[in-house]
């Protein structure tokens, strides 16, 4: 593996008070090879995991802006249903004829917002970026198991993005049946124009996306299992890697089921089958389809859909664990309990899907079973929160922008997670299903939290990604605006939900039951749009710092994991010399008896006699 790799000739910048890592330098036999790679292979069709990670990140940021713009548009409609939005005419054209948003386009907006945020930003942008970037660096590998497959993974994602983005400009509009694309609405163009070409492109795009996820996932799992450096046993892996590992397994097991659902839907749409269609009279015509079941689609969809929310949140959990420990200068509390709860969440995530379907006409007995399994998942989630809190306790906390976002993550995860206890209860879900209570719940617990994990990760690993630091002050401003903004948007949204306001409503004015919260909806819209604009502080900071940021050192956060033993800008192959060996767990922060307040993983016990715990003394021999 290590042969034939071009390695950049960065010098080892000296830093830190940490003991000198114990590495045996080989004779640089593979130095100075293909130094002047063509830019096309270096920046575009790169097989280097770090470049692929940057590609995922920047594509993810692009999508996040699109997703944010779409949400601002529909929040305008919900906040000011009476307003005329003529000024949007130049952008939206026929979708806003006469200053009024077209109701079908409104549905397309919410559909695309959901699709983009869940899949393109929080799955590809988050897990794609950090799994790619951190797995080889933290397990001590030169690159992914298959650089080529890794490259394909990005380019399938790119292809998928191109198809999805193009669908925004269709004459009949993009898919508009909700991001869950329940048939028959998604199967019949007669039912809504978005289910014509828009839906076809959605399905094609999603098939590419699934291919991308599988190529990536197989690579992540293989790399973690096979390519750990000497001494890096599974019980010495940073929690980030555990999270990426389990996330990849969830993806590999659940995305194919979405593929099957998409395939059957394609058959129903194009080849006259009746998997999901039955007894339909629409647009003055009785269709021939009989015997299909729309509920079957929901089972297939949520078999992916529920693990999907954990695919979104677990990488964030892993990164937050890492960042909280580093910046509290304390070991993560309950390392094994943290791994155990991740495994528990992963297993349970496969057996809770039907809690999305309590009132779909599914057998109520199944409802009982899924209520039981769903509420159980609160226990490992709670364990994680308690462990994070215990990690902060008696720490010596350094508020970097990454740390702020990590604390924010925990806060949002608690706020959003707790209302899951209401929604997971089948009885209470009768009233709350598909109301804004659900919208508020998942936007806090998996939307905003995962975004906060993403931001934390970017601020924390930016120095290793681009060799420069992001501006901390702008980071603070970004954090506080976003944190306050998110709470101002989603806390009041719970009130609207408790009052029973249905989601995906173009306007509530037709109902007396939903007439009371016009002011609150205006407030939510205002907060949402302001929070969206606050993100440009981040975008400016990000791109400015890539070129003009302060130069980073090798290990700016005094962290213990292996990625910080690489040069400031690690070249292809990551370490110029031999890959460091690992001797200890990743959380030796503030160890009593140690000189520095951190001991990197590649420092053997024999070099730290003063701080070794009793059982470690034997390992030092």
């Amino acid at each position: 593996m290590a042969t034939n790799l071009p390695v950049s000739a960065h010098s080892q910048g000296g830093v830190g008070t940490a003991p000198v890592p114990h590495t045996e330098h080989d004779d640089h036999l593979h130095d100075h090879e293909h130094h002047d790679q063509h830019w096309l292979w270096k920046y575009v069709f790169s097989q280097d995991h770090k470049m692929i990670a940057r590609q995922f990140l920047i594509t993810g940021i692009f999508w996040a802006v699109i997703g944010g713009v779409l949400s601002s548009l529909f929040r305008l409609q919900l906040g000011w249903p009476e307003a005329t939005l003529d000024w949007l005419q130049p952008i939206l054209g026929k979708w806003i004829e006469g200053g009024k948003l077209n109701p079908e386009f409104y549905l397309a907006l919410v559909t695309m917002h959901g699709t983009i945020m869940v899949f393109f930003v929080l799955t590809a942008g988050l897990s794609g970026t950090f799994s790619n970037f951190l797995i080889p660096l933290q397990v001590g590998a030169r690159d992914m198991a298959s650089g080529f497959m890794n490259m394909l993974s990005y380019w399938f994602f790119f292809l998928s993005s191109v198809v999805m983005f193009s669908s925004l400009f269709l004459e009949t509009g993009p898919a508009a049946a909700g991001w869950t694309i329940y048939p028959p609405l998604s199967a019949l163009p007669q039912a809504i124009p978005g289910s014509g070409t828009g839906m076809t492109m959605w399905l094609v795009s999603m098939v590419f996306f699934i291919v991308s996820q599988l190529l990536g996932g197989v690579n992540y799992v293989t790399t973690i299992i096979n390519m750990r450096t000497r001494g890096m046993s599974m019980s010495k892996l940073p929690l980030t890697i555990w999270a990426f590992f389990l996330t990849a397994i969830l993806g590999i097991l659940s995305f194919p089921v979405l593929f099957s659902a998409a395939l059957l839907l394609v058959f129903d749409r194009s080849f006259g089958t009746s998997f999901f269609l039955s007894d339909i009279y629409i647009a003055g015509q009785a269709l021939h389809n009989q015997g299909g079941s729309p509920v079957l689609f929901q089972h297939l969809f949520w078999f992916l859909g529920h693990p999907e929310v954990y695919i979104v949140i677990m990488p964030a959990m892993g990164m937050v664990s890492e960042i909280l420990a580093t910046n509290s200068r304390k070991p993560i509390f309950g390392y094994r309990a943290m791994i155990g709860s991740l495994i528990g969440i992963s297993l349970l995530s496969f057996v809770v899907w039907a809690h999305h379907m309590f009132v779909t006409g599914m057998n109520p007995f199944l409802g009982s079973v899924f209520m039981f399994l769903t509420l159980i998942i609160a226990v490992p989630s709670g364990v994680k929160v308690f462990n994070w809190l215990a990690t902060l306790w008696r720490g010596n906390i350094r508020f970097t922008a990454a740390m702020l976002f990590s604390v924010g993550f925990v806060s949002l995860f608690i706020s959003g997670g707790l209302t899951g206890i209401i929604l997971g209860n089948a009885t209470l879900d009768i009233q709350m299903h598909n109301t804004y209570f659900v919208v508020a719940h998942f936007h806090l617990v998996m939307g905003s939290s995962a975004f906060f994990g993403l931001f934390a990760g970017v601020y924390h690993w930016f120095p290793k990604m681009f060799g420069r630091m992001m501006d901390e002050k702008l980071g603070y401003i970004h954090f506080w605006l976003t944190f306050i903004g998110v709470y101002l948007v989603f806390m009041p949204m719970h009130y609207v939900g408790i009052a029973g306001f249905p989601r995906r409503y173009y306007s509530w004015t037709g109902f007396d039951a939903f007439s009371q919260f016009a002011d609150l909806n205006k407030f939510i819209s205002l907060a949402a749009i302001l929070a969206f604009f606050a993100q440009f502080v981040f975008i400016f900071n990000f791109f400015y710092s890539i070129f003009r940021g302060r130069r980073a050192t090798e290990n700016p956060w005094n962290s213990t994991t292996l990625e910080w033993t690489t040069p400031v800008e690690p070249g292809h192959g990551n370490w110029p010399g031999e890959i460091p060996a690992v001797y200890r767990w990743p959380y030796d922060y503030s160890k009593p008896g140690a000189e520095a307040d951190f001991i990197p993983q590649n420092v053997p016990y024999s070099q730290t006699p003063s701080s070794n715990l009793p059982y470690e003394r034997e390992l030092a021999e």
Partner: protein
Amino acid sequence: MTSLTILLVLVLLLVVFGLLFRLQILTAIFSGSYVRQIGTSNRVNAVLMLVFMVVGGAAFFWSFAENFGKMNPPIASIHGHAMEKMFWTTMTVIGVAFVLTQALLFIYSYKYQHKDGRRAYFFSHNNKIEVIWTIIPAIVMASLIFAGWKAWTRITGPAPKDAVVLEVMGKQFNWLVRYPGRDMKLGVVNYRLIDASNEFGFDLSDKASMDDFVASEVHVPKGHPVLIKIRSRDVLHAVYMPHFRVQMYAVPGMPTRFWFTPTATTDEMRAKLGNPKFDYELACNQICGKGHFAMKLKIVVDEPDDYVAWFAAQPPVSQNADLMASFKQMSKQTGLGKGGSQGAKEAATEETGETPAPLAAQASM
């Protein structure tokens, strides 16, 4: 011209921000805080954490209390009252957990902010604590699950034999309602017989359908169990009646149902709320297309006597000449609607005319 001015102002604002940003960096470089790892901003952020908790918490409780009156749709069903109690009990439980964990998070963030010379406490694990905070939530969860499960089985269990039966059918974009008529049996319908005059697709060769009647609003008697049978004829819809705490999808090809007992007539509720215009409403709560947000159906809860009078005054479908004519024509076209009640039942892909069966008998797929 105005838009040009706005654009110009925006650009100038951006320039000002950019200059401020550069200025901030330059002063930081001169003061030396640019490269210092931990400076005043650490303290500022720690204090802000505390401020956020206090101000944010106060704002949350104030706004919650302020909006509480508007948050709770009035309840008008027996199980609705039980659900409401369970909802607020659960909210209290999670409220306690919310306050405790958030308080610890922000207080720890403030209290354990960096201090020069202090060293964090090396505390890597404690199995006893882990067990405690696994078991306590597990017990709380178990009791919530048990309460939820008891209520769920009761609510979704079989409707009482004497329940009033009616059928609601969703279509793009309104609701159709029919009652079984005097024989208390809903007749067979077949989606292939649907046309403009026969929106339900009545198969009139089934004797049971002759006295069925359609209505433009739902009437139900107070204090009497009501079983709503639910169907859709095109895409998914959901019957959502917030005042009765009722929700069930309308699925094409798979009849569903929900039963409940109304506890207050429309008039009583109007008096109670002091709103003479109040009406119970049925909304669609599953995305179904352009008119999703406007699928409203009025529900009237009558005193039982009024209900009986209303019921008796409705004309059966057999008196609807348009419908009869349309049925004859469609029947000729499709070859359906022949062979009497038995033939109608065999031709229909699903049957809704049986006596109330337990909800639990619905298959999941």
